[in-house]
């Protein structure tokens, strides 16, 4: 049962991150050329988000993004804004204690990021 709840926590937080990415201008999630960067859920996968449970039982997230050119703000600021929004969303969902480190990787820059999804 503990394993099931860990899996569902991972998937819920991954979906939460995907929602935050989708609502943030100038970026899109990418699963990568080989589709490696995704979290497998029971019904569908969450592309662009890797969710892993750490040793303390918290869920670490790795967000893989395509930035849309022209970039509207410095990448560091964009990444920080994304993390803040994600922590806010996790707090609203009552999952802020379960959210561990959030890493942000800008993997590509494209004129139209929509095709990279």
């Amino acid at each position, binding site marked *: 049962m503990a394993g099931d709840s860990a899996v569902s926590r991972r998937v819920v937080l991954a979906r939460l991150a995907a929602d935050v990415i989708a609502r943030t201008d100038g970026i899109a999630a990418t699963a990568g050329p080989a589709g490696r960067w995704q979290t497998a859920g029971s019904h569908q996968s969450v592309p662009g988000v890797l969710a892993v449970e750490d040793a303390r039982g918290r869920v*670490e*997230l790795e967000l893989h993004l395509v*930035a849309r*050119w*022209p*970039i509207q703000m*410095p*990448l*560091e600021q964009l*990444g*920080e804004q994304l*993390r803040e929004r994600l922590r806010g969303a996790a707090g609203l969902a009552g999952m802020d204690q379960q959210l561990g*480190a*959030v*890493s*942000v*990787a*800008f*993997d*590509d*820059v494209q004129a139209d990021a929509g095709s990279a999804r």
Partner: protein
Amino acid sequence: MTLFVARGLARLTALVLSTTLAVGGLAVAVFSVQGDSPTLSLPSLAGHMRLDDLLARVGMTLAGLEAAGSIAKVAAVAGAGTVVLGLLLLFGVFGRTRERLVVLRSDDAGTIGARRRAVAQVAVAVGEQSRDVLRATATTAARRRRGGRLRVKVYLAESADGAAVTEATRVRVQALAAPFSLRLRIRAVPRRGGGVA
């Protein structure tokens, strides 16, 4: 590079071995249809495969291996080579490519960074913003923890002032390079003739 070679070698070996095993298994299965020693029997297969000759050769080789001499040396070298090949194959199967990020910030809350290619793409886009630049190329090298190097090459239009374009490009690209702690190097290449520093 080593990982890619090892991975290719491992895949090729797996393909060859699995194909050989499949063909061998099929042959054994076909020659197991009949018992004793008619056409489709295992003794017949052994006869086709000349295993009697092989047994004699293996016996001679093993005898030579026991004595000190050239065969023993060759066997030792072959054994060492096989161990190295085995390690290379394991590396090819289990090795993972480390995709290094150019790090902007890294702390307990996580890492914010960009792939080298993405940084180079932005540098090219920024470098090509000038009318005096026909096109630009960029390469990024990342250090293990933080920082690295960004090299931008701008190809100048015919009438462009190389020094002025280099400086203007440096100012623009520096805004990108600084947060990543990248050492910036700009090189302007005139349309005709050699490069301009």
